[in-house]
C-alpha cells in the first residue's frame, strides 16, 4: 500500500482514539497519547490561528505538559464546578490530511465538538493541527492546536472540556 496512505490511516486511527477517549472522559489515557514535552493550544478567533504565537498573542489555552496534567487532575474533581457532573461530549473528526517533515508528521483535520449540559448544547467548529512523532514504534502527539473557525466563542461561555 502507498506509504502516505498507510500513514494517514495510522494518524486517523490515533485521532479517532483521542476523540473516543475524550468523549468517554478517559483523560489519563488521553494524556498518555502525548509526549513528555507536549503542548495543547487554542488561539482566539481574531488572530490567524494557523500561525499565531501563544508567547506573543493572548490565547484561550496555552498548556505545556505540566498544565495539561493539571488540567486532567482538575477535571477529575467535584470542585471543577463547570464540569461537575461531566457534560456530554462528542468529538467528530474528519478531512484528515497528513504530511511528513523529517521525523515530524503534521496532520490537519476538521472537527466539530459538541458539549451538552443543563439543557444547552454548544458546538465548537474548527480544525486541528496535530504534530506527531514516532516513539518506540508508536505515534505520540507532541503538539495539538485547535483553531476555531468561528467569529467568537458565542454563545459558548467556556472551554471547560478538552477540545
Amino acid at each position, binding site marked *: 500500500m502507498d506509504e502516505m496512505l498507510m500513514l494517514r490511516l495510522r494518524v486517523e486511527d490515533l485521532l479517532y482514539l483521542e476523540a473516543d477517549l475524550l468523549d468517554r472522559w478517559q483523560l489519563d489515557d488521553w494524556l498518555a497519547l502525548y509526549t513528555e514535552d507536549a503542548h495543547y493550544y487554542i488561539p482566539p478567533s481574531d488572530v490567524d490561528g494557523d500561525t499565531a504565537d501563544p508567547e*506573543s498573542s493572548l490565547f484561550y489555552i496555552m498548556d505545556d505538559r505540566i498544565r495539561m496534567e493539571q488540567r486532567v487532575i482538575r477535571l477529575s474533581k467535584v470542585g471543577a464546578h463547570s464540569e461537575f457532573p461531566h457534560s456530554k461530549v462528542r468529538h467528530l473528526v474528519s478531512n484528515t490530511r497528513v504530511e511528513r517533515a523529517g521525523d515530524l508528521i503534521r496532520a490537519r483535520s476538521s472537527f466539530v465538538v459538541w458539549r451538552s449540559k443543563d439543557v444547552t448544547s454548544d458546538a465548537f467548529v474548527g480544525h486541528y493541527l496535530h504534530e506527531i512523532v514516532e516513539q518506540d514504534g508508536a505515534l505520540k502527539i507532541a503538539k495539538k492546536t485547535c483553531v476555531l473557525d468561528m467569529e467568537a466563542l458565542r454563545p459558548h*461561555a467556556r472551554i471547560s472540556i478538552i477540545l
Partner: protein
Amino acid sequence: MPRAAFTSRDVFEREYEAIFGNCWLYLGHASELPEPGNFLTRTVARRPILFTRDKEGEFSALLNACPHRGALVCRERKGKSRAFMCMYHGWTFGSDGHLMTLPGSSGYPEGFKTDPQKQMVHAPRLERFGDFFFINFSKDGEDLATYLADAGDYLKLVAEHSASGMQIVGGTQEYSMRGNWKLLAENSFDGYHAACNHSTYLEYLKNANGALGATPLSGVARDLKNGHALVEYSAPWGRPIANWVPLWGEEGKTEIAAIYAALQARVGAERADRIAHKNRNMVIFPNLVVNDIMAITVRTFFPTAPDYMEVNAWALAPREESEWLRKFRLYNFTEFLGPGGFATPDDVEAIEKCQQGYAVGGEALYNDISKGMLREDGASFDDEEQMRAYWREWDRRMNQVES
C-alpha cells in the same frame, strides 16, 4: 437586591436608557490604533462603532452607519485605511467621518455633499484618560475625569507598570455568558467566592509550584465613588511585575528582581510596593473591569437580553517587556482567566446557576450582599462593600428614569 433586577425585561430596557445611554463606556486603548490611519470596529452598548485615527493622529469614534441608507460602512474588524466606502452606493468617508466622495453627485443639489446630515455621525462624546478611551452617548453630563472619581488614580497605577507605556497584547477573548450582565460585575471583584468557587485553581497553584506561596489572601475593599469600587489584596500567585513563583524557573528570578528595582527607582518605594505586590480587582461603573491580578485583564460586557451578555477581554502589558516575561505573563493570564482558564469557567458556572436559580420566583425575591456591613475597622477584600457601592449607583441612576 431584588432579583427582578437580573430577570426583568423592563429593567433591561431601562438600563439601556438610564445607564448605557448616560455613562462613560470603555471603547478601546490607544495602543490598538498605533499608527495614523489605523481603525477598528467594535460594538458598544449594542451600537456598532468605528474607532479611527486620521493621518494627523487624531482619534474619532463614529457611529458606523452610512448617512444615506444606514448600511454599516466599515465591515472589517481592524486595519489601516484613510477612506471608508459604503458597499451599497459607494458613498466614501474620511477617518473623521466627512463625506469625501458622492457618486452620481449631479443628481443632488449644490451643498448636499457638505450638509452636516450627510456626514457620518460621531459618538456624542469621546474622551481619553491616559491611553483609555471612553465614549458617552449623551451630550450632557460630567467629563470623564470627574466621572472616574477615585478610580482614575487606579487607572494611573496600572499605567505605571511601564516606563514606556502599556499596550493591549494581540488576541481578544470574545465569549458570552447566559446570565445577567451585573452578575459578572459582582463576580469580577468578589473576594469572598475564591476559596469555594476556585478551590481547584488554588490546588493547581500548589501542585504546579510545589507549594502554595506564603502570601495569604488578605486586603481591603474600597468605594471609589460614582459606583466604581475595588478590592486590593495580597495573594499567593505570581505577578509578572514583581512576584516570582518557582514555576517560572531560576533564570526568571534575576529578571523579576531587576524589574522591581527599576520600578522602585521610577515611582518610589511605597508606590512600587503597591504596584508590584498588591492585586486589584476594579469595576468602573457600569461595565469596565480592570483586574490587575496574575496578569492584567481589561474586560467589558454588554447585555443583549436580561439573561445573556457578550464579553470582550484583553490582556494589557508593558511595551518594553522582554519576550521571556511576555510569555510568562500570557501563561499566567491563561492559567486563571478566560473561557479556557482554571478559574473563569467556574465563575461562569456560578453566574449561570444564579440566573437559573432566580427562576424559583415565589417568595425568594432578594439577594444578600450584606457581608461586612457591621465591621467597624473598614471593609475586608472578602466583604461585599464594593458591591453595595456599585448597586447604590445603579439604583440612583435607574431611579432617574421613569419605569
